[in-house]
């Protein structure tokens, strides 16, 4: 019985170790992390473009626009916080903080879409901004 318990504890410890190791995502912003985060900001911009374009052309529901823009705003806002406060590798501080500002702007625009999901002219304007900011194809 003791051996079974030990085995079970080892399995549990292995699971915890994998969660902890895989979850380590903080620390210093290096070139690779900055490239990834910049890619994520572009991705959120492009998704926001599709959602706001759908809202502008009445091709998505109001509930969908509100829920999805809120989820994307939260993601952008978390990214903005992380990029604004995490330490950076040498020579990357200016670019990192610029990306933090871009993410914060993105979050603010998404919150505007969330607040006015049925305002089609506003959605059209936001859609153009998202598309330009994300360099979306």
């Amino acid at each position, binding site marked *: 019985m003791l*051996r*079974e318990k030990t*085995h*079970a504890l080892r*399995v549990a410890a292995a*699971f915890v170790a*994998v*969660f902890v*190791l*895989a*979850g*380590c*995502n903080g620390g210093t912003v290096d070139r690779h992390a900055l490239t*990834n985060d910049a*890619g*994520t900001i*572009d*991705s959120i911009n*492009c*998704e926001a*473009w*599709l*959602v706001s374009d*759908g809202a502008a052309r*009445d*091709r*998505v*529901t*109001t*509930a*969908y626009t*509100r*829920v*999805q823009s809120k*989820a*994307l705003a939260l*993601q952008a806002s978390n990214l903005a916080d992380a990029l604004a406060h995490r330490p950076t590798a040498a020579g990357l501080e200016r670019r990192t903080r610029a990306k933090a500002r871009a993410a914060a702007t993105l979050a603010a625009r998404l919150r505007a879409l969330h607040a006015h999901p049925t305002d089609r002219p506003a959605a059209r304007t936001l859609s153009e901004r998202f598309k330009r900011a*994300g*360099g*979306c*194809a």
Partner: protein
Amino acid sequence: MSKLLNLALGILAAIGGFVDIGDLVFNTAAGATFGYQLMWVIPIGVVGIIVYSEMSGRVAAVSGKAVFDTVRERTGFSAGLGALLASEVVNLLTLAAEIGGIAIALQLLTDLSYRVLLLLAVVALAVVLWTLHLEWIERLFGYGGLCLLVFAVAAVKLSPDWVKVGAGFVPHISQNDPWLYLYFAIGLLGAAMTPYEVYFYSSGGIEDGWTTKEIGLNRANAIVGYALGGFLSLALMMVGASVFLKHGIEPEHLGTIPLGAQEPLGKIALLLGIVGILFAVGGAAIDTVFSGAYNLAQFFGWEWGRYRHPAGAPRFSVTWIVLLLCALAIVLTGVDPIMVTEYAVIFSAVALPLTYIPILLVANDPEYMGANRNGTLANVLGVVYLVVIMVVAVTAIPLLLITNVGQS
């Protein structure tokens, strides 16, 4: 005629019930990241789940024993307990992810609070589980899941480059970020070969009173149902490639996926996509919660089964209620269901050999199976997939770590 109709209805339900949150997440993300390059993994995964399910269904029909009966009998208590623990952890993670998925789909339809919808989802699942007959549960969620066919229509409507689609079926390694590519390949295999589907399938066979007369039906159900269900996975990957890769979107939310149907087809397609996701993850939640209860009851020799009144199998009934509550507790912590899904799929790939190997051994045992033991084809496929499963199990966690859970 009635038998044929039943078979057709069962297959329809299987198509709609094939996709779960792991398939939705991994297939769409794989398409969004690597285009059509990983199409070849889906048929390999589908044949794998057919081989595994057919064997376990045949063992159930011949011996009247489901997977965890067989595992305990073949491996003994200690080794069997390890397999049970691993399976229950993976089942619980999967259940938590599916419940989170139900709440997200409901939220996309109603804009109500996510936490309120989590509670509502668990209560609704409990009511359905307590009151509906198993056959009706399967059909309700299976037919609802057919709304996912909107992704197949979208995939065609998006006019993909069919030459590139065809080339995607040729196995190869991508030169662009090969570790991430391998992570997705492992994830797609894990998502297609989720063990809970097999536990549910073989236990369901016993609940339906399968005997050796149903071996043909078992084979037809496994082959046709899973193969057609695999087309939904292909459609999701194609939509991922045609919409999300094209626009540079990494789909990190469940709500992103229906945009893939909305883009070519409009608002109705968006709604059908969300409803399809709702029924697919709802059906998978039911399969998962029952699998967890089946496994525990079979391993410890308790009374089990949906055809008994809950009072006739009290420990089985208490188990599924406790599993629902544990899964609810996990998602109420605020953990992202998509992240839970990724861990669940990768860990299920790791745990897969623990139940696959005993089933393969028993299915090939002439004393146990008599004339219904594995034939040459079943044995060749069984051994080939044993190698595939072992490779997947050994590499899954290193790839999870190397790619930082697919972030790379």
